[in-house]
């Protein structure tokens, strides 16, 4: 009963496996081995700066720049605001960058991505664009313009209100160009068209007002000025269109690259699932084997579809790996919930190993078909609870006939200044509580 609890040296955990070993080995050869290898395809790392939606005040330009340059956001915001005071240079720079920098769209896990694309999830918009926010922006702009006029009287030359009308028009036209609009509904398209038309009207109106105030109504009828009006309006309309086309082209190119990579992964995935299904059919008379196969495949798929990518070795990844092993070896379901995370050091490794031993004990001896594992890693302490609703045992008898529990759980924890407590009620189940302070 304690053959699995023999002391383990080194990270090698591939002790002799039960009958499922061949199947598992066969599967491993077929599928990508382990969760780490099933990481989703990553888009080529971009060197250009992107606008960041989270933490954005306006368009996310400052946040994006800060992330790109590695400077504090506050500094960049201060620079932009300071520059904005100097003949509105900052505002112009901001506007140009807003248009030039694409929105950061790091791909979500494939399952979520696919569900989003097929409309199975409510799209959480990158930036909410409610009217209140736009109104606030508009008022802010008008306020700044008024302030500048007040502080710099020489600017009175530029007629104020026509400029505002012009600016609002430009803003209306350009906000349409900002959204990528992969597939939009008819109602939204109508709205977009109306908005663009309104914008163009305002632009034209602004120019007409400016010219008529500067040079009199008569000037409007001269061919030069008519030409100027037409030119500016055309520019205002064509520029967003050109911008959008450019963006669409870039997106198309990226997607082609991704599509190829995805196709490879998809075929790999299909192989693994089909393989498992074939195995399940062959073992149809052995419910335990079927359940184990299904569970293993589910775990792999789940990790691939919804798994968060883990870069380094952490307690969470180690526990996930341990739970997976126990599921395969013990033929039980291990429900693992982890709150918080921490780097894996020698002591935390001991904690994970003790947890694994506790899970394995529950799987082998409790008779329960499910083991609940809850790990909580706070700032100063890590705790793991391993619980089963199996047959339980008399805790007093542990020291004698359960060398595994003493050696690999209690003593291991004690060696690393941790605590292990076992609570068990015959007939109701067992809970192992492991606790280790973080350094």
């Amino acid at each position, binding site marked *: 009963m304690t053959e699995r609890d023999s002391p383990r040296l080194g990270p090698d955990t591939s002790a002799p496996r039960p009958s499922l070993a061949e199947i598992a080995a066969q599967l491993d050869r077929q599928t990508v081995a382990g969760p780490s290898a099933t990481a989703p395809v990553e888009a080529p790392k971009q060197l250009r700066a992107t606008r960041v939606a989270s*933490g954005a005040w306006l368009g996310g330009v400052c946040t994006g720049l800060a992330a790109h340059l590695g400077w504090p956001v506050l500094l960049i915001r201060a620079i932009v605001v300071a520059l904005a005071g100097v003949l509105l240079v900052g505002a112009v720079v901001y506007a140009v960058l807003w248009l030039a920098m694409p929105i950061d769209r790091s791909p*979500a896990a494939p399952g979520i991505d696919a569900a989003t694309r097929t409309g*199975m999830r409510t799209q959480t918009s990158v930036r909410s664009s409610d009217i209140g926010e736009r109104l606030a922006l508009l008022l802010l702009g008008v306020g700044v313009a008024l302030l500048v006029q007040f502080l710099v009287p020489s600017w009175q030359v530029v007629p104020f209100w026509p400029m505002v009308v012009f600016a609002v028009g430009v803003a209306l036209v350009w906000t349409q160009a900002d959204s990528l609009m992969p597939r939009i509904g008819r109602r939204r398209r109508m709205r977009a068209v109306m908005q663009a038309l309104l914008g163009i009207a305002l632009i034209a109106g602004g120019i007409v007002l400016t010219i008529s105030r500067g040079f009199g109504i008569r000037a409007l009828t001269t061919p030069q000025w008519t030409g100027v009006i037409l030119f500016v309006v055309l520019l205002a309309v064509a520029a967003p269109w050109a911008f959008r086309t450019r963006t669409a082209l870039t997106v198309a190119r990226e997607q082609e690259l991704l599509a190829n990579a995805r196709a490879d992964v998809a075929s790999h995935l299909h192989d693994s699932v089909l393989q498992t299904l074939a195995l399940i059919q062959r073992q149809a008379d052995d419910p335990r084997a079927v359940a184990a196969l299904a569970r293993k495949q589910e775990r792999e798929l789940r990790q691939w579809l*919804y798994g968060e990518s883990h870069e380094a070795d952490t307690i969470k990844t180690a526990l996930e790996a341990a739970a997976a092993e126990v599921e395969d070896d013990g033929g039980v379901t291990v*429900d693992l919930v982890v709150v918080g995370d921490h780097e894996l050091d020698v002591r935390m490794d001991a904690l994970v190993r003790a947890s694994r031993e506790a899970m394995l004990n529950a799987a082998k001896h409790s008779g329960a078909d*499910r083991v*609940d594992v809850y790990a*909580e890693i706070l700032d100063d302490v890590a705790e793991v609870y391993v619980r089963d609703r199996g047959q339980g045992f008399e805790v007093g008898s542990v020291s004698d006939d359960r060398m595994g529990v003493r050696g690999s759980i209690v003593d291991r924890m004690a060696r690393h200044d941790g605590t292990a407590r076992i609570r068990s009620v015959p007939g109701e189940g067992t809970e192992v509580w492991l606790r280790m302070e973080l350094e």
Partner: protein
Amino acid sequence: MTDSTAQHPSRQRVVIVDDHAMFRAGVKHEIGPLVSVVGEGSDVETAVTTVLATTPDVVLLDVHLPGGGGIEVIKQVHEKDPDIKFLAVSVSDAAEDVIGVIRAGARGYVTKSINGLELVDAIRRIADGDAVFSPRLAGFVLDAFSGSIDIAAVDEDLDRLSQREREVLRLIARGYAYKEIARELFISIKTVETHVSSVLRKLQLSNRHQLTRWATDRRLV
């Protein structure tokens, strides 16, 4: 449970919303003898129509659904009838899906691997106005509210979990059933239910900075 038969027939009226007909059939087969399935929906549109027409006690709602997802169903139904109760059932473990659907107004979340009896139990709980948290959901909530037991913080009530609520959530995450939690903490099952409902309310209404940041990190807002 049998005492409540006086008020309404003990068989809860349930609508199953899922785009996989196989899954609907499976669930219906499993829970059919214990509850009465009064309708089915396969996408947002049919789901909203069916739910509004039948006004069931509980709607079993898939998170991923053609036409905008489960969240959209909750939004549209609650616009017309805010009393309809939803239990989210999904294969997705992604935090954004789980928390997203709860924030939208679902009163519970369970995974599709749940067995029939547990599901019926969850349906009854929801019909009685309680909340149903799976261990995973409890873990997400603890994660989202982590560090919030700072006693010095003068946060609003909504923005933190009480010590007791944390304890209850941790026990749920550890795999305890409500009955076992009640015994462990020397409180009544009703009190456990009250705590869980209160956590649900906080999760839905809270604006707390950390929850927002946690959600932003996961692109929920």
